[in-house]
Every structure is written in C-alpha cells, then in structure tokens.
C-alpha cells in the first residue's frame, strides 16, 4: 500500500537519518521525499511517500513518533 507520511520535528542533525533507519530496517524503499526547515521556528517538516504493508504502517508510525524530536506524525493512503 502506498502511503504519504507527514512529520513535524524539531530541527536537529540526525533526525532524518533516524527516521530513515526505521524504514531501512524493514527494507522499505522511499518513493518520494521532501523536507524543509520552517523559518525561525526551529522545526522541520518531512514528507515522504513509500510502499508499506498495511499491517506495518501503524507500528512504523508509532516507532517514528518515538523519535524524541518528532512532534507529530500523520499518514494516509495514496489513491492511485
């Protein structure tokens, strides 16, 4: 299932790497990714699209949310 995941995080080195690691661990390939720092707020937004098994997505989102710097995460299925 193709999902789009929206993450709000504290802007700190290594956060993207930590999130990417959670995908790599499960051999999930990122189809699209975009990230930017929100000016003056010390936060970043990360969006990615990836093919993730339905039953894995809930756990993956919770694991990403466990990353200390992550403030919020939302995901939704991408309709083809």
């Amino acid at each position, binding site marked *: 299932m193709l999902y789009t995941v929206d993450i709000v995080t504290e802007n700190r*080195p290594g956060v993207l*790497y930590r999130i990417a*690691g959670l995908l790599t661990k499960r051999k999930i390939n990122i189809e699209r990714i975009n990230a930017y720092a929100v000016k003056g707020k010390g936060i970043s937004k990360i969006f990615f699209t990836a093919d993730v098994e339905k039953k894995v997505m809930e756990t993956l989102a*919770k694991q990403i949310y*466990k990353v*200390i710097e992550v403030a919020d995460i939302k995901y939704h299925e991408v309709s083809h």
Partner: protein
Amino acid sequence: MKMSGSEILIKSLLKERVEVIFGYPGGANMPIYDALYDYGKQIRHILVRHEQGAAHAAEGYARITGKPGVCLVTSGPGATNLVTGVADAMMDSVPMVAITGQVAAEYLGSDAFQETDVMGITTPITKWNCQVTHADEIVETVAKAFYIASHGRPGPVVIDITKNAQFEEADFFYKKVVVKKLAFTNHFDDDEVRKAADLINRSKRPILLVGHGVLISGAEKEIDELTRKGEIPAAATLHGLSVMSWSNPWFVGLTGMHGKYAPNVLTNEADLVISAGMRFDDRVVGKMSEYAPLAKVIHVDVDASEHNKNIKADLPIVGDIKTFLKDLLPHINTGHRRSWREQFRILDKKEQTAEKKRLKKHRDDITMDEAIKTLSEKTNGQSIIVADVGQNQMFSARYYDFKKPNSFITSGGLGTMGFALPAAIGTAVGNPKRQTYVVVGDGGIQMTIQELGTIMQENLPIKILLLNNEFLGMVRQWQELFFDKRYSFTNMTGPNYVDLAKAYGIKAKKISKKINLRTAISEFVESKESYLLEIKVAKEGNIFPMVPTGVAVDKVRLE
C-alpha cells in the same frame, strides 16, 4: 565560574547522582579522564579490560539499581567496541548513558586518527544520541540524556563529545531537563480499566504473562495480588523471571522457547491473554499466526509501538503497569479458577516424566539441571544470578528457584554471549549486599574472559559457575535436533580454567564427578572471595521443553 568542558561533564554527572563509571581511556577522552582524577572520592571509576565489558557492566549496574549505568570510552575503536553492549541495552530496555570521546570538531569528517561516525553507528541502537562540539552544550545534553534514558521505556543514549569541547571553557549552571513527551506515561482512562476488568472477570481460562516491564515499574506486589485475588495463572518471560516465586500457587513458570510445557501448551487454550510489560517477542510466541487462537488479548505496555506489532491486541493499554494494576485491582472479582490451574499441574507431570527419562541418560555425568538446582538450594534462592547465553542460560532460568525480585540478569533480546562476566561486575558494584553468581558456558566465558582482570583489580567477590560441556552447547543441540547431528565447528578446546583464574588471583576448582557436586557447591557458596568453580558437565545434554523456531507454542517438544 568558567571551567573546562571535561569538568563540566563530571560535575553534571554528579548532579545526576552518578556514583560509578565503567570506562576505558584513550586519546579522545583524555581530558575527561584528567578531570576525573580530581573527583576520585565522589565518583568510583572501574577500569574494564575491553569497552564491551564497560557497556555490559553498566547494564548490570542499571538493572540491579534501576539507575542509568554510565560508561566512558574513547573514539574510534573504543566506541565500536562499545556497540554490542549498547545494542544489548536497547533490546532489553536498559537505561544507559554512554559517553564517547570524539576527535576535535575541526577534524570531523576528515577520516582523522581514530575517527568513526559514532552518531551514524549508534543511531539505530540507541533511544537517543547527540554529538557535542562545544563546552556550553554539555550541561543540557547530559541532563537530557539522563532524562531520556530513564523515562518512559528505558534505553541507552550516547553522548559523543569532541575533544575541543572537552578542553574549551564555559560556565557551569546545572539545570535539569524534562522531555515532555516522556513525562506522561499513562494514557489510559477509567473506561479502559473497566473494560479490562470486565474481560478478566468474564474469562474462564485467562493467562497472565509477566515481563520485564513489571520489574522496571516495581509492580511485583500488584501482580501477586492480581493472581491471588483473581485466581489467574501467570507465566513469566525470560526477563519477567523472579517477579513471582513458586510460593504463589498461581505461578506456572517460564514460558516461551525453553519455557515449561504447561504454559506453552495452555496459552493456546486460554480465552484471555493478559500481557504485563512484555512485548510478544518471537521467542515467546513461536509461530505468530497460531498464537493464542482462542484468546482475547489485553496488552499493557508503556511503549505504544509494541501494541499490535507482533500480536493483535483487543485491548491495548498504554501506561505504566504498576499504575494500571493499582487502578484495575478494585474491579477484579474473586476468581474461581482452580480447575483451570489444575490443567497446568497435569501437564507439569507429563514434563516431569520426560525430565526423569532425560536425566537417566546421564547417570555418571553431572547435568546442568543438577548444578543449577544445587546452587539454588545452597543459596536458598536468594542470590543474583547473572546468566550468559546458551544452554547455561536456559537451565538457570528453569532451575534456579528465584525467591527475590530482580534476581535474574541475562541478555534476552540480543542474546549476547560474553554478557555475564562483565554484567556481574555491574551487579556486584551496584548491590554489594547481595551475592552475585555468574553462570556461564565455556564458549561465552571466553568472549569476555579478560574481565577477570577487572574482578581482580576491584577485588569483587563474584562467584563464577562455569558449566563446561566442551561444546557451543546450544548450537550443538540445534545441530543434533535439526541438522542430523552434523556437529559443524561446535566442539571447543578450552584452556586450563583453574590455572587461568588463579593467574588472576581468583580461587578456583574443577569437578567432574556427581559425588563431588554438593560439597563443591557448598565450598563455592561459602567462599567470601571471588571463586571460579568449573563443572565438567555432560557433553551432550539438552534443554527441553523446546518450541522450535517458527512452530506454534502448543507444539512444544518434550524431547
């Protein structure tokens, strides 16, 4: 007042009430060591013989005290040597603060001498990590590290401090940090508590699974009350051992791969599984799709990401197990489940028959069961058992009669051979009032055997029970059962362990005959100093029951 980053670090550790550091010096942490030199009275430093030992010792310390274990190593090889222990702490939810020296910031990324990407290497095996390149970042980082390591689900954090930050001067004002996200652990409401109580009260065949979370949260009493009041049979995971003792009639023993026959079989007949601070590891559930098919599942865990990860939960509860149980207990009706409990006893008999048959095969040789049972008797089940990995670990788990909580320390999630000897240094330092026993195989002891030197130097009265089968026993057992007895590279020639221990000034003895077992263990237990007792055990002894990998738990094998 301005002071060096190194001194700021030491002062920050003192503010976090650190009493012991397990460490090893090198080029990239020398300024920190230099600062430590002046604080010898306030902080005890234990010089290990290999950085892996520092990490495992910190784990042992953390697990016995409940406080984060601290280790301090240099960059490059110091940090990479530490990695196994950090990964181990991550898997077993052990609070740890690991401090690594790093090359000066100006050299970062230049492949400088002893530079490794510590952040890169440790990111997947830490709860959090942070690189510090300036002295004025140290206080906040340390405060945050301790908070994160010990709040919510505990875990290891790594602080990588570049050498310039250790030299640089800054002001020292200590301020504790609260990480909001981890400040609130209980995310359940009354409605969920009542739902859980309702599921429990209506269940005819419930089984409670007691995990490491119960020890971390200190909920032994609540578990005891729940089982007795509700008449609920309770099994323990490897890390949940010692929460309950056999004096509670509702305790049914270890479950999982080498757990007892009854809890494994009857999990698949239960109509309710109550999971208390355990994560349905594959070594507990066997074939996931065939696990507890008749049961509703209540899963209590502080870590929400464990819910529905392996086993679907009908009622996931996010929270601290002790708080939850306290709320739950008033709603629990007095249970009437003796006949359900009786079914466990019937299956226990079946297991005992198989066990007797197995022991008959080894009339002359000492078996691991006998060694552990004798140790258990002679110590009245009161000691701290630090078991390594393999058959020795599973026999310890099965045959030591734990009578006190928090008494079984072993590497569960990562299954790290070589864990026991250094981890025992941590438990002995962390709780000198209780006696620490190491149980280890001839394979595992040789992985970290150099820590005998640490035991010698620190004069730690650690007792080491070496169960020598001259094999990598657990692997050999699998070869026997699943690879047609093709013993491919699992027999191991060992050194003269008695001479070796003696070379480290540690008392030692070796026995191989059954008739000497009881006196040898008595002498071993009574010794006031460190002592290595090598027992030559049956070479091809096996541990049963066993749930082979990927097989349903009710297909557990008795032989």
